[in-house]
């Protein structure tokens, strides 16, 4: 429980950071986490070659190369084939990088009432969580949170934006002491 509590605090910080930064995966918190890993690698190795998405153990690799999000059809929480493929990658990465914990954020587009969308976002986040658990992720390493329609990525009011907003995003963080 102590591990989880600390992780929640960390995730809470990430979530707050997201309040002022829509694209949280480029934000300072994520880079800082990575910097801990980079410190040991700094000597004698070309630093630029291993940064970011080129380092398979980095959060950037997780978010950019594997893909940190899956998208959903209107008013559904069913995983698409593409979504399952992405989650297979996530499950593999989390199996390798076992010191990371995950929080799944569920989101909805703006076409719905606030309450319903919160519940729908929770369904989507849970669908992802259960899939990851089915692929071997320990249930203690993954939590869910729903933002409903409160945190859209794309702001236009048509399907091109709605499709990007109907998403579940896997936010990873180092679990202290794992």
């Amino acid at each position, binding site marked *: 429980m102590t591990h989880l509590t600390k992780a929640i605090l960390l995730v809470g910080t990430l979530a707050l950071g997201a309040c002022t930064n829509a694209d949280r995966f480029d934000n300072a918190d994520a880079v800082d986490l990575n910097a801990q890993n980079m410190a040991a690698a700094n000597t004698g190795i070309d630093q630029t070659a291993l940064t970011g998405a080129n380092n398979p153990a980095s959060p950037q690799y997780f978010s950019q190369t594997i893909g940190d999000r899956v998208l959903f059809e209107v008013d559904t929480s069913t995983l698409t084939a593409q979504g399952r493929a992405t989650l297979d990658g996530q499950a593999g990465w989390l199996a390798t990088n076992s010191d990371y914990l995950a929080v799944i954020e569920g989101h909805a587009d703006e076409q719905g009432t606030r*309450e*319903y969308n919160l519940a729908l976002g929770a369904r989507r986040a849970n*669908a992802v969580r259960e899939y990851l658990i089915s692929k071997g992720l320990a249930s203690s390493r993954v939590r869910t949170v729903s933002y409903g329609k409160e945190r859209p990525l794309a702001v236009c009011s048509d399907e091109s934006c709605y499709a990007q907003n109907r998403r579940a995003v896997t936010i990873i963080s180092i679990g202290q002491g794992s």
Partner: protein
Amino acid sequence: MMTKFMTFLAAMMIALSATTSAQAQEPLRLTLRDGVIEALPFAIPTLQAEVAGSEQMANDISRVIAEDLNGTGLFRQIPSSAFISTPGVFGTPVAFADWRAINAQALVTGAVAVNGSQITVKFRLYDVFSGSEMGEGLQFVGTTDGWRRMAHKVADVVYSRITGEAGYFDSRIVFVAETGPKDDRAKRLAIMDYDGANVQYLTDSSAIVLAPRFSPNGDRILYTSYESGFPRINVLNVASVTRQQLTTSEGDMAFSPRFSLDGRQVIYSLIQGGNTDIFRTDLATGQHQRLTNTPAIETAPSFSPDGSQIVFESDRSGTQQLYIMSANGGEPQRISFGNGRYGTPVWSPRGDLIAFTKQESGRFHIGVMRTDGTEERLLTSSFLDEGPTWAPNGRVIMFARETQGADGTTALYSVDITGRNLRRVTTPQGGSDPSWGPLQQ
């Protein structure tokens, strides 16, 4: 009454059939079944300043009374430029002929006296065409910083005496004040007078806050906050602006809270393993009770005014629809059967209607229906209208409207339950999730 009436009718038929001058003393019996529905013209000459230095306050109070009445759409202020005469000293006889001549049907006269921080407002309401006073004159005494409330109280009495309904002007709204673009929106809890005056902020914008709800007597506010990183319900004391988290049943996330009528219990939605059900928590004992138990999304619960039933939304049928169940849970009855999706039901304080948000063919509506689902009426239509809340007298509904596109903003609107008088409520920033508090004491 009708039986007696019919008897009388029969008697009249006999009287008529034997038409002679002997029956001339009988009254002519007629039934009026139709009229007009239009704003009632009223005059409110600027209240008199009874004490030197009260003039500004008298002006301001007169203006707010008129704005309250005009704002209902049921009354229409006659401009002072049309006045033939001005009233004499407050309480002296009124020259009704002068007011009849400009077709004023109601006349409000009054006087204001400011003494230090104390303010006294007196007023009388007249029925111009019968040349009589409607009810007795009244006097309110308060402090100068509460002058708007005194104006609202006068307007509430005028409204009530003319319409026969309780007023709603001396009441407050708690809502979510919104600033910033859609993808970086800051939300703060805010409280204001019903007309948008006296906005005060109750939280900062460091965490998302949603859907505040007044307690029945207005002393506390329930709302959902992401302070912890997850949606949880907070209870905020309005007077001290202190808050604490509501202890709920075990669950990942809690939201959509509402007080019971006695303010002792909270009903809310709790998410457990991705599934949303409705629960109830007793604030004093901390006991929790599950009220729904299905794999469907069950949310937005609202008590009936007698506390015996709960209306809520569920997608158990496949789409969002409205259901009513006992306050203790149990098998619910579906009440919405129209096309489209129905959400956020709110029971009217009079008990006769349920207001809701409806989505149909890409449009959102605020509507009302009887508690058995009949007589559905849609009051508004736009790209996104949602979250109705009732005025304390059950005649007016406030809701949030969001405009379309990247530059979309939210604003509060009100509409009466006949669908007339749609008005934007002036707020300093965007606003959403209004909750209308009770008439203040």
